[in-house]
């Protein structure tokens, strides 16, 4: 299946030169190369330029609420763990209004991959500072330089318990595709920070800036080798993230943590075979013949 077949045919209405085109391309390539079953792929997105992406992809799309794609996705995944659930959102969406959910996802570690379209601005509302914009920077639409410190999604993600963390670049579709594939293959909560130029509002982050301010990781092993290795790996990630240049590639992967699906199964033995979306709930229009004594005995008189 070619990546072309993953286009829905809806016209992508991003600005010329928008990094979202690169993400769109890389995503389709990854889905095509992995031979995904489109019926099982659910892209859940927030509101923003980034949030429109599911409409353009020929898979199921849930264009949710600003900042709430993660809980929508979590609900879907819990109800039907057989779906491949992917989240797309802007930096404002996921790390501003949605920060509480972003952290909560790490704590749960469901098998959901989050792609952060990081353009440092609120694109669709005309260029306000997003939570990733550096302090002192004044992008096009700002009346004053930004006075908030930026969040680093990798560090917040690590502190929140994400088990897969990576960074890539929207205009390097090949690299991004590989990172997405790795993210989709990982079992657990993953986040990819995608540097996504927004030529319309972000006059700082252009190709030149990226060339000067990023660097592809080489010789870096992101995988936590053993539980004892965890601290060292995390400290190293911290070092990577404090470097002048943004590191591109897979930054952190921890395969030792159970997924939320496994955890649910641990307290609910029927979960795996019988997740909510698969359960029978009626019998020819009637509720199932529950045994009152066995199930509700404590209320009986």
């Amino acid at each position, binding site marked *: 299946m070619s990546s072309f077949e993953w286009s829905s045919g809806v016209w992508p209405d991003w600005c010329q030169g928008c990094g979202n085109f690169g993400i769109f391309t890389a995503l389709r390539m990854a889905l095509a190369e992995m031979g995904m079953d489109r019926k099982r792929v659910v892209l859940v997105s927030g509101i923003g330029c980034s949030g429109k992406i599911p409409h353009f992809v020929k898979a199921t799309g849930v264009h*949710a609420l600003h900042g709430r794609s993660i*809980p929508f996705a979590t609900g879907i995944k819990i*109800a039907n763990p057989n779906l491949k659930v992917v989240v797309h959102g802007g930096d404002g969406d996921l790390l501003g209004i949605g920060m509480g959910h972003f952290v909560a996802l790490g704590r749960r570690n469901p098998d959901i991959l989050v792609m952060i379209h990081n353009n440092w601005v609120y694109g669709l509302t005309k260029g306000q500072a997003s939570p990733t914009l550096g302090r002192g920077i004044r992008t096009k639409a700002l009346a004053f330089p930004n006075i908030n410190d930026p969040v680093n999604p990798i560090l917040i993600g690590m502190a929140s318990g994400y088990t897969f963390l990576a960074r890539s670049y929207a205009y390097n579709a090949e690299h991004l595709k590989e990172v997405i594939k790795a993210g989709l293959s990982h079992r657990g909560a993953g986040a990819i920070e995608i540097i996504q130029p927004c030529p319309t509002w972000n006059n700082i982050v252009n190709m030149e800036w990226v060339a000067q301010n990023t660097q592809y990781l080489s010789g870096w092993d992101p995988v936590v080798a053993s539980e004892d290795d965890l601290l060292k790996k995390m400290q190293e990630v911290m070092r990577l993230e404090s470097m002048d240049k943004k590191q591109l590639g897979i930054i952190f992967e921890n395969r030792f943590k159970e997924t939320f699906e496994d955890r649910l199964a641990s307290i609910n033995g029927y979960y795996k075979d019988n997740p909510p979306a698969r359960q029978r709930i009626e019998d020819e229009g009637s509720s199932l013949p529950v045994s009152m004594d066995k199930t509700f005995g404590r209320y009986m008189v």
Partner: protein
Amino acid sequence: MDVNVVIGGPQGGGIETAGMLAVRTLVMAGLEVFGDREYHSNIKGKHSYFHIRAADRPVGSIRYPVDVLGALDAETLGTHFHEVKDGGVVVYDSALSSKSLTRIPSLDPIRVERLKEDLLERKIGETVEALSQYLGSRGTQVVPIPFSKLLSEVLKFPNPLIARTMNTSITAALLTLMGVQQEAISKAVGFLFREKEEVAELNLKVVEAVCDFVKSYVKREPVAVRRRTERRLLVAGNDSVAIGKLMGGLRLQTYYPITPAADESFDIEENFELRDSAGNIIGNPVVVQTEDEISAIAMAIGGALAGTRSATSTSGPGFSLMAEGLSWAGNNEVPVVITHYQRGGPSTGLPTRHSQSDLLFTIFAGHGEFARIVLASGDHREAMADAVKSLNYAERYQVPVIHLLDKGVANCVTTTTLEERFEITRGKRFDGVLKEGEVYRRFRFTDDGISPRAFLGEETMWYSGDEHNELGNICEDPLNRNRMYAKRMEKSRRIMEEAPDEDKALLHGPERYDDLILTWGITKGAAVDALESMGRLGRRVAVLQVRMMEPFPGSYISKFLSEAAQVIDVEANYLGQLAELVRLRCGMVVRNRVLKYTGRIVTEDEVASSYERILKGEERIVLWGGE
């Protein structure tokens, strides 16, 4: 028989167990019981009480004055003594006798002031002793029992154990004084502590010792035990809803803890192994505690999209936070259920107290216009059935449903009968058939306005909070807009056409009436219970309990209202929100309003006496009974 009992003490001091023990005992004695729990927003120390009414006919409310008061502390005596009938019974630990009634740190300063004034006016001293003399002088049977002495001497209990069984002691004593047989008490104790054998044994001993001691004080007729054959459930409203949801096929419940909703989720979690009569597991729900209510509604929506019957359960503050998600569900025709238990507002308000003040908010919550159903239950049996109905309505019409309850229903306990089977209707499903080249259209325009629904994973499809075309893709075209908007909105009309009358409103009492009490929620219980005494005033009175609040059965309701000479609205809020809604939807003005917003439930006698006052010409009556 119609007996009212209050057992009070510090929150966390065993009042909950005491009350449930009394309730269960009385139920086991074959009586109809209704129990109201009142407690502060506090874990331990503030005053809390259980008000129990036991009668030989079904009851759905409480009454004042009470027949029996059991006090675990001095605060209870000071707070409730004025509510005891002359000739009633008051039981407490004789060790309290020297305690001051007013120097109690947990007592609200405002309450202290009022108590002082009251004592002064009645010329009562400020100690328990003084109070008990006063009560005795009014013909009340005051029974200070030397529990400590009794339990240490008879049972050789050490002090901490005596403290821990004080609730059972007081309860056993007051039940005995009411004429209940020891056997019934012991049975109830056995049931309550069925999972902790040792505790059960200790408590049984306490019962024995106490009953033995109290026997000589009993002045009442023994309560005759009625044997009942039908199987019943003894439940709080939270339990009712949990059972209804489970029976109704709920398989995903999301929640963020909040009083008085959280117990329902606890219930579902604990009852999670649904078994059929052969004992086989037939499904098990997942209960997820979320990071906030925004997430709770979002996850429930996610579950619903995936084809799972999904709900979330909350109260006012949480519901406020769900408004945005509700609007998304409305736009995307998502069958999701929000179980909303009202409590005292605004804001944190009176978080553990009753209220019916979110009616209009639930009807208009969420920006923009969309169809929704708001279904309000008036008692425990309805709460259970409506939980099922809500899930059915949601899927049948593909709309969000708000199952509207209140703290009264949530926390009051009573018995209800058991339906073993409920109807389940899942609505129009996509049959999987697509023509060559055809793409599944989630929002397909159809004759009946309902698009066949596929679950996520069955086909590719799109959802969007933006206005969308039949495929679910964003669309700003004005004509598509008009059509899609109308498709969503016209569901309300359809629902109203198809809903059975019993879901719209229920008439209690005579079919032909002079005056009509208009009410809803738990307040219905008080109104129905008051029918008999209201009937004695020479006019025929009935109660109209409204259940479907949105879409509102305007013409159905109007018919009932227009047959009444006087309509009297009774509800637990300030505005008379149901009366306002009636004005909005029926164009009829209900001027007589009996309102209560203290956070305590409306009592039978409050309804009866308000009716009388209304007949005498009062229009707006504000109630304040109950501590």
